C-alpha cells in the first residue's frame, strides 16, 4: 500500500491540507462509465433506441422519397410523371393538405419518440437515486451526473438515429426501384438527400439530448441525503 503507508509526518501533514477544489472527471472516464451503464441495461436501451429508429426511419423516408419524386418530376421524366400522378405521389407534392397531413404524422412520430426518451430517462434516474446519491458521497460533481445521463442518452440517440436513417434511405431507394426501375439510380438527388440525412441526424440526436436534459438536471440537483433516503 505504497501511497497509504507514507511516513508518519507526511501523513499527518497531508491530513491538515486545506480543503481543495474537486476536479472534473476526465471526459473519457465519463464516457466509459456511461457506456457501461448502457451495456448493463441493454434491454431497456434497445427499447428506447427502437423508438428512435422507428421515428427517424419514418422522417427520413418521408423527406427522401419526397425529394426523389420532386427530382424526377423536375427532370421532366414525363413517363414517370404520369405514373406518379396516378399513384397520388406527385399530387401530394402540390397538394398542401396532403403535405400538412404527412408532416403531422412525422411530427407525431417524433413526439412519441421524444416522450419515450423522456420517460425512459426519468425512469432511469428514479431507479438510480441511491446510486446517484452514493456517487455524490464519493465525490462526484453535479456536472458529472449530468454528463453521464446526457452521454447515455446521446449514445442511444446516435445509434438509433443512424439505424433509423439507414432504414429510411433504403426504403426510399427500394420503393424508387419499384416505381421507376433501374433508371432511378441516375435520378437520385444525391446532394439533396445527403443534406436531408444530415438534417435527420441532427434532429434525431438533438431530440434525445433535449429529452434527457430534464432528467439529467433532476438527477444532478438531488441532495445525496435525499437520494439515499428515497425508497422506490
Amino acid at each position, binding site marked *: 500500500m505504497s501511497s497509504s503507508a507514507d511516513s508518519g509526518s507526511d501523513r499527518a501533514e497531508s491530513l491538515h491540507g486545506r480543503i481543495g477544489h474537486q476536479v472534473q472527471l476526465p471526459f473519457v472516464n465519463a464516457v466509459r462509465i456511461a457506456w457501461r451503464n448502457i451495456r448493463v441495461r441493454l434491454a431497456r436501451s434497445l427499447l428506447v433506441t427502437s423508438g428512435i429508429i422507428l421515428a427517424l426511419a419514418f422522417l427520413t423516408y418521408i423527406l427522401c422519397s419526397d425529394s426523389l419524386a420532386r427530382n424526377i418530376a423536375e427532370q421532366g421524366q414525363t413517363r414517370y410523371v404520369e405514373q406518379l400522378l396516378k399513384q397520388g405521389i406527385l399530387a401530394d407534392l402540390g397538394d398542401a393538405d396532403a403535405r400538412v397531413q404527412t408532416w403531422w404524422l412525422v411530427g407525431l412520430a417524433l413526439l412519441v419518440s421524444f416522450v419515450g426518451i423522456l420517460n425512459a430517462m426519468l425512469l432511469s434516474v428514479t431507479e438510480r437515486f441511491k446510486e446517484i446519491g452514493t*456517487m455524490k458521497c464519493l465525490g462526484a460533481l453535479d456536472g458529472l451526473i449530468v454528463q453521464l445521463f446526457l452521454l447515455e442518452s446521446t449514445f442511444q440517440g446516435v445509434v438509433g438515429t443512424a439505424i433509423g436513417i439507414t432504414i429510411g434511405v433504403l426504403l426510399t431507394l427500394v420503393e424508387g426501384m419499384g416505381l421507376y426501375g433501374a433508371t432511378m439510380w441516375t435520378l437520385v438527388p444525391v446532394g439533396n438527400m445527403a443534406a436531408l440525412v444530415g438534417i435527420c441526424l441532427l434532429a434525431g440526436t438533438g431530440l434525445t439530448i433535449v429529452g434527457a436534459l430534464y432528467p439529467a438536471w433532476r438527477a444532478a440537483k438531488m441532495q445525496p441525503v435525499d437520494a439515499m433516503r428515497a425508497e422506490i
Partner: protein
Amino acid sequence: MPEKPQEAEVPEVMLATETAAPKRGAEEDKAGLLAVHVIRAVGVKRIFYLGGEPVNALRGVDLSVKRGEYVSIMGPSGSGKTTLFNMIGGLDKPDQGHVYIDEVDVAALDTFELAWLRCHKIGYIFQTFNLIPVASAIENVMFPMLFAGTTQAEAQQKAAELLKRVGLGARIFHKPVALSGGQQQRVAVARALANDPAIVLADEPTGNLDLHTGEEIIRMLEGLKEDFHVTVMSATHDHKMLAASDRVVYLSDGAISHIKRREELDIKFGTLQGDDKGVG
C-alpha cells in the same frame, strides 16, 4: 493520553482560509501529538418538517473527536444518529451551530469544496452497503480515486491492494450481486479507504449483517484504524458492536445523554461480547 490542544485558542467560527490553528496542528502532529480534534460539532441543531410538524432531529449536539479515535454513536433509531452523521459527512448542514472538519466549517464550503471534502477527507460506509450495482468490486473501489483525479492504472492497482487488505483478493472482479453481505461491506470498507481519508463514517455498518459477520467488520475497522491512521465514527444500536470503541457517545432524542470511555465500558460490560443487557 496525548496533550490536549488549547481549545480556547480555536476560534468559534473559522472559515476555510487563513487561520493559524491548523498550521499549529500540523506542527503538533510532526511532534507526534496527534491530538487535534478532527471533528468538532458545536451546538448542532437540525429541525425537519414532517407534514408541517417540526421534528427536532438534533437539539444542540456538542462533540469533539480526536484524530485516530474510534467513536461509536449509540442510540435507538430516531435518536438523530444518521442526522449527525450526515452533518459530519458534509451531506447536510445544521440549522444552528457548526460542524468543523479539521477546523474548517463545513457550512462555509462551496459545492466543489464539499465534493472534495467527501472525496478526500471522508470515507462512508453505509448500512445497505450502497455499492454501485453495475460495477465490479474493483471498479467500486476505484470510483472515489477516479473522482479524485487518479489515473485509471494507479486506481486499479491501489483498489486491488485495498481489496486484498480487506480479504477479498480473489473476488475483485465480481459484481456486488455475486458477493455476500459481509463481502459487500468489505468492498465498501475498501472503497471508504480509497483516498486515504482522515475520517471513516460508518452508519450502522453491521445493521444488515449477522452477528458473526458484523463482528468481523468491526474488528477489521479497528485494525484499519491503526494501519491507515484514520478516525472512525460508527453508529450502532447494537451493544455487541462497541468492542472496538475508544469512546461511546449515547445519543437520545437528538441530544447526547452521556459519554463513556473504553475503560468505563469494560467495567460495565465485563466482556464486550454476548452481553446484551447494557445501557439504555
